[in-house]
């Protein structure tokens, strides 16, 4: 026989249709977004993981200062247990638009290309371009553009498997798919460019592949010794530490974790909303439950009954959410990644993992929380239900409030204390909603601020890094020296540090180093260093360590760098007196041979982090803003409405007594208003702190430094959006109070 209690489900659903509709929509939104995300993410991760073998992605690459002899290469291969593949490239400036294009020759054995559109180059002026770079400059197969005076024809759109994130240099904080791109030409086409910007780059594959990153690290440490004994190294980048290869993969994995964490936190909050609301329903239906229990219905049957609506709601939302996730949202989610990373082609298929993660686990969370709470609530005796006494143990006593306080204020306080569990869930909802909102709002001003700070604190408009010391006639240029060392902090992975030797009385870097070094504010903040600390750095491709005493800081917010006077620099690194390899100059130095310039660091280079982050995250931030507001409104509305429903009889009674609606709102809605507003005010610094901590943790793994700074306007915007959202909720709540009939108070007399 069918459970006769099922007939009550329809009635309960009708009575609380608003609540169930809102929760259903939120479930759909969460499950749809997460399943869409996981499906596309899994497709991309699978394709990404397969690409290592499918396209023979290198185990690392190295660059020699000078073209090595074949015998040297053979020695390295033999002693290092590797096979080297020539992978020369030339960094050319585009004429049609402002960017650096890294051009490679043909790649047939290693780091092979994945074709998205068109074909690989066959003619001298053909070029296959990275998909994102091409998109950002509106290039497609058939387009032409100018590079270093040559007209190149785009023949294909491809993914460079060793550039899934377009990092120009491994020391860059962020990739850049606008000002930097990669392309492949035929060997003939490649050689037709002059050799001014030629890099003697080789990719390597181990004869015996490392089993994991730790083994890869050990093997690369051995290899770098072997190679540096035989030739002058310019660069040495094992694949495991190459951001251009691993950043996208790591991001795909990390985002998956973040998204699922977010889903589960939301599910827990929604489960608690169900618990609070179901408990309120149980209180309302206490006498019915008592009668049913007394008539022979078991506790389990009652638990099952009250769990049905929440679980059915989730079940229905799971079906709808998964359908939407697979059909509509998958493309949207994929677009976010394809707009940032140069990934290979991928396929979407039914994904059991996605189903488990986005449907089964939330179902279990909801089931366990509801079951635990209901089992506890429904364990009371039938008699207690019949007497509408749902307290455990002794009857609850009223604590005393100072009678000097007016009755209306005491009334509000009593409402507050009565609803503390609901308010706690509201506070958590506000924190979660705020975090999402905050995240959505903070990036734009933070990136602007970062850009402004970086530009304001640039050492010079141009920093010329030279291949060898060369004189200039420009009187305004200032000589300095620079080299790269690596950090040796135990807790953090090694990262490049630019060490500058600055001339006395420098007009570009005004700093008193004393007997030690000054470190950039970026380095100071990132690693929590202080004046007086000792700093140990190591040479990248040898075991040689250097120790410095920090005597000050220099306002340089974007780079991990240390500054010392030029004489000490030469002495420390055993260089000849008067050595220099960089120029600081506000002018472009026209009289230096291009071939002697290794790189020129300009405003564009310094601001590419903020530029790329704006491009990568801009559109998704709007989604965060709206989602934050939705979360905010939903949690406050559901729980505040519950407080009103729970007190419907008291509200009705106060109406009978002759209280005006505004007075009743003053009691029941304003108490929630005060809690909501205070929570909004008080939790903002907490949210700021939490986001800051997460932000710092995430960026600790990145090279360079990106300061977490909260703009006051972000706080204000959050607060204003919070207040406006709440005003909307309060308006609806006021109407709910107005709608409670006077006859409600008579119900328990029936």
């Amino acid at each position, binding site marked *: 026989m069918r459970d006769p209690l099922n007939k009550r489900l329809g009635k309960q659903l009708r009575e609380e249709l608003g609540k169930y509709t809102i929760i259903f929509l939120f479930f759909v939104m969460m499950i749809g977004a997460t399943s869409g995300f996981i499906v596309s993410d899994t497709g991309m991760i699978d394709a990404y993981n397969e690409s290592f073998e499918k396209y023979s992605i290198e185990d690392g690459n190295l660059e020699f200062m000078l073209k090595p002899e074949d015998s040297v290469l053979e020695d390295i291969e033999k002693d290092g247990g590797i096979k080297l593949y020539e992978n020369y490239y030339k960094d050319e400036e585009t004429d049609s638009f402002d960017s650096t294009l890294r051009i490679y020759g043909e790649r047939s054995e290693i780091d092979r290309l994945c074709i998205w559109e068109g074909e690989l180059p066959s003619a001298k002026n053909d070029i296959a371009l990275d998909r994102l770079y091409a998109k950002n400059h509106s290039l497609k197969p058939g387009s032409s553009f100018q590079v270093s005076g040559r007209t190149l024809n785009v023949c294909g759109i491809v993914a460079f498997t060793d550039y899934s994130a377009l990092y120009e240099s491994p020391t860059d904080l962020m990739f850049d798919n606008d000002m930097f791109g990669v392309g492949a030409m035929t060997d003939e086409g490649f050689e037709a460019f002059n050799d001014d910007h030629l890099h003697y780059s080789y990719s390597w594959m181990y004869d015996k592949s490392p089993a994991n990153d730790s083994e890869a690290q050990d093997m690369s440490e051995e290899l770098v010794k072997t190679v540096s004994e035989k030739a002058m190294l310019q660069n040495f980048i094992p694949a495991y530490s190459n951001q251009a290869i691993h950043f996208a993969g790591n991001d795909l994995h990390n985002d998956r974790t973040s998204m699922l964490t977010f889903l589960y936190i939301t599910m827990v909050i929604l489960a608690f909303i169900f618990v609070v609301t179901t408990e309120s329903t149980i209180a309302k239906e206490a006498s019915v439950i008592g009668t049913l229990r007394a008539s022979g219905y078991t506790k389990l049957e009652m638990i099952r009954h009250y769990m049905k609506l929440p679980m059915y709601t989730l079940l229905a939302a799971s079906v709808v959410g998964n359908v939407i996730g697979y059909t509509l949202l998958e493309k949207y989610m994929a677009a976010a990644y394809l707009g940032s990373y140069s990934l290979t082609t991928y396929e979407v298929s039914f994904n059991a993992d996605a189903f488990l993660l986005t449907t089964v686990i939330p179902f279990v969370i909801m089931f366990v929380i509801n079951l635990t709470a209901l089992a506890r609530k429904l364990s009371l005796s039938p008699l207690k239900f019949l007497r509408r006494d749902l307290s455990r143990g002794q009857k*609850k006593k009223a604590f005393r409030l100072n009678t000097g306080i007016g009755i209306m204020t005491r009334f509000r306080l009593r409402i507050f204390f009565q609803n503390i569990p609901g308010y706690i869930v509201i506070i958590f909802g506000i924190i979660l909603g705020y975090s999402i909102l905050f995240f959505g709002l903070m990036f734009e001003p933070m990136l602007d601020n970062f850009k402004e700070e970086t530009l304001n604190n640039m050492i010079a408009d141009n920093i010329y890094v030279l291949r060898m010391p060369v004189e200039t006639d420009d009187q305004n240029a200032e000589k300095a020296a620079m080299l790269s060392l690596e950090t040796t902090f135990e807790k953090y992975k090694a990262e490049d540090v630019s060490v500058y030797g600055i001339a006395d009385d420098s007009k570009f870097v005004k700093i008193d180093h004393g007997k030690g070094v000054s470190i950039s504010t970026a380095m100071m903040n990132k690693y929590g260093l202080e004046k007086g600390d000792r700093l140990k750095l190591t040479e990248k491709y040898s075991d040689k360590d250097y120790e410095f005493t920090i005597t000050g800081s220099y306002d340089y917010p974007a780079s991990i760098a240390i500054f010392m006077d030029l004489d000490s620099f030469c002495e420390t690194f055993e260089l000849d007196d008067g050595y220099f390899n960089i120029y600081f100059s506000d002018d472009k130095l026209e009289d230096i041979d291009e071939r002697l310039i290794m790189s020129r660091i300009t405003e564009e280079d310094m601001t590419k982090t903020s530029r790329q982050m704006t491009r990568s995250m801009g559109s998704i931030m709007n989604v965060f803003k709206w989602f934050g507001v939705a979360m905010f409104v939903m949690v406050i509305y559901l729980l505040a409405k519950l407080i009103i429903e729970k007190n419907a009889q008291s509200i009705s009674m106060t109406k009978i007594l002759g209280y005006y609606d505004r007075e009743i709102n003053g009691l029941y809605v304003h108490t929630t208003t005060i809690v909501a507003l205070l929570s909004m005010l008080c939790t903002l610094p907490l949210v700021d702190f939490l986001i800051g901590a997460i932000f710092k943790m995430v960026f600790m793994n990145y090279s360079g430094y990106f300061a977490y700074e909260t703009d006051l306007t972000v706080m204000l915007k959050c607060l204003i959006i919070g207040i406006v959202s709440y005003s909307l909720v309060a308006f609806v709540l006021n109407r709910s109070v107005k709608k409670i009939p006077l006859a409600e108070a008579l119900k328990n007399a029936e």
Partner: protein
Amino acid sequence: MFLELSQIKRAFGEGESRVEVLKGIDLKIEKGEFCVLLGPSGSGKSTLLNIIGGIDTADSGYISINGEKTADMNEKALTRYRRKHLGYIFQMYNLIPNLNIKENVEVGAYLSDSPLEVDELLKTLGLYEHRHKLPNQLSGGQQQRTAIGRALVKNPDILLCDEPTGALDYKTSKEILALIDDVHNKYGTTVIMVTHNDAIKNMADRVVKLRDGMIRSDRLNETKLTVDELEW
């Protein structure tokens, strides 16, 4: 006439399930009168009381208090009418569960420009030592006394009592009736009490008997008894 009801009709439901609960009630009550509305279940007495109290509205007919018709009042004026003139006592007390006893009474006092002194009233009601307790810590009789305190503290013109002893035992019922009678005598409050207990009619000035939504008799009680003398 202080309170006048004319041709009050009220029906519930629609179509075949429509039930006429009040079929045209005419009633006049003098200021300071103690009126008992007596009748069996379903006679329409509680509905009538709810209409007098502005909790429910009549389908037709009118009520006037001191010459002012409640039908002419908007919602706000109707609230003001309840606020200034009425005190309500229910069978199931309807106290606010999260307020203590004193606060429940103070909720009534807040509405009046000249409320009675709350502590004095609590002492009179025998509730002073329980003033810090929550309603669920008190017996039914004590809760009903609290409800009476809440109704009386604002010194209403009319006290509407809907089966005030319906949930109480004999002894407690008599205590409550005595209390209402005292208030009536002391403050000259007009009392309209709904009951199905035939014995209670003997303490009233006027006894109105209802059956099937109609007044079957409306008479002044010439031989009033004290509460002590009531027996059932």
